[in-house]
């Protein structure tokens, strides 16, 4: 048998839960062939579950070991890892959770998982470097380019608060809906979470998509969204203080 066929056979055995071992292998020590394959099967799932748990630490905390292991087990059946980077194993987990009946007791869990994966992603991005932008000098329309670590997020639960509670090991029960918007970014290698209101979130998101300041105001007007000058000013104050803008272009 060619080496490629043998590798396919081996990996199929390791990633399946079948106790059967191909006869082409001989076990080490006094193991049976099934036990020898079992060593690799056990390590495979343990390593992936651990990597998933490092990304979704608070999801694991809220769901508990049994439920998390069960979900991880099923998740890796649906989405076997393809990337060399273990940090990528959770790429489809939020989507997977949204379809999992095991988490229906936790209506906030999908949003919290999304928030947690965003925090993990941002943590590995380059921190912002404040470019000292003076907004007072800007008089015409402009476009903004944010640093790569900046995210605008919006949820129907206050996931940041729930996330902090879960990380601290506190119980997260009786959670009610509470529309919550955030801007997250990394500064000095720390992930910073800024709470915003819905309009500010939407405004920031439009700017991030490449719309100019005036185009964004037009979008708000067309959609009958009211954003007051004070809200806009506050938002730009947050941008200025946090230093999230890499550059702006006058139009």
């Amino acid at each position, binding site marked *: *048998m*060619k*080496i*490629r066929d*043998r*590798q*396919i056979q*081996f*990996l199929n055995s*390791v*990633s399946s839960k079948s106790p059967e*071992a191909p*006869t*082409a*292998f*001989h*076990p*080490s*020590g*006094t*193991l049976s*062939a099934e*036990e*020898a*394959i079992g*060593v*690799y099967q056990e*390590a*495979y799932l343990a*390593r*992936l579950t651990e*990597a998933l748990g490092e990304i979704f630490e608070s999801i694991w905390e809220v769901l508990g070991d049994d439920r998390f292991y069960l979900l991880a087990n099923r998740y890796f059946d649906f989405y*076997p*890892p*393809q*990337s*060399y*980077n*273990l*940090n990528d194993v959770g790429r489809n987990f939020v989507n997977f959770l949204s379809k999992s009946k095991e988490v229906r007791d936790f209506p906030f869990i999908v949003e919290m998982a999304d928030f947690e994966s965003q925090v993990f992603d*941002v*943590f*590995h*991005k*380059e*921190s912002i470097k404040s470019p000292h932008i003076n907004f007072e000098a800007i008089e015409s329309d402009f476009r903004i380019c944010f640093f790569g*670590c900046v995210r605008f997020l919006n949820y129907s639960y206050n996931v940041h608060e729930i996330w902090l509670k879960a990380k601290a090991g506190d119980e997260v029960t009786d959670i009610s809906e509470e529309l919550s918007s955030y801007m997250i970014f*990394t500064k000095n*290698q720390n992930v910073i979470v800024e709470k915003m209101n819905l309009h500010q979130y939407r405004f920031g998101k439009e700017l991030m998509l490449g719309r100019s300041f005036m185009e964004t105001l037009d979008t708000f007007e067309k959609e009958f969204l009211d954003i007051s000058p004070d809200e806009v000013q506050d938002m730009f104050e947050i941008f200025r203080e946090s230093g999230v803008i890499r550059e702006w272009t006058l139009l």
Partner: protein
Amino acid sequence: MVSNRDNLGFVGVGLRSVHYADVLEGRVSGVDFFEAISENFMDSKGRPRIILRKVREKFPIALHGVSLSIASTDPLDYKYLSGLDELYQEIDPIRTSDHLCWTGVLGKNGHDLFPIPYTNEAIEHIVNRIDEVQNYLRRELIFENVSAYLGFNESEMSEWEFVSQILEKSGAGFLCDLNNIYVNSFNFDFNPFEYLKRIDLKKIQQIHLAGFTDRTKFYFDTHSRPVCDEVWQMYKWLWENGVKSPVMVEWDQDIPDFDTLKNEALKVNDYRGEERDENSRSSDSVSELGF
């Protein structure tokens, strides 16, 4: 090109996140270098990468990969190689290594160091891949022997013959993991000194030491315990036979405080006896040790 004459006698430990504060706050002395896992840093532009840069300002670093998958029959991953190249350029490591193994096939990654059938077909395949990788990275890599819990019936030779042929035909260096040799010697019932005697010691450019777990039916390479006495004896034998390449202790589970780890690594000094001259190399030390 790195030669096994560089950094002779260096003693190091694996760089693990639990010890970052010790290293960065200057509470570390007594080790000559750190070995970092390439994949933990290559795709991060955030804190992990910054920390690695800071450690590099204080210590030489060896970069050790786990995902090159040199024996896989899938095409080489050039995105991975590009990230590795960028990290190498930035860190300027004293050694660049990965494993003689494969980690996945058909685009699926098992995130483990899987064994290879010891066949001529596999040798040819791996040698060609090493050539392709070294050309792309414009540097020599060194490859580590892995522990295994099963073998392949179609194997045509011993592990040491297989490793030796790959090293000889590819020109790559050897990262000799003594714990892996010892674990395999138990699991596959051979004399670990026979392995050492049969390989070209001049190929050894780095040495790994670690502890394993005795699972009764087999030894499991867990990196969770101190180095066992038998492995220290193997290290002593290498030293006495002129191998003075950088040596380091890997500890990945139940990681102790930094001083305990450092003291484990510094035990090498207890096993660095008199070096024998070239002509006195013999198998007598094997029988003396009872293997």
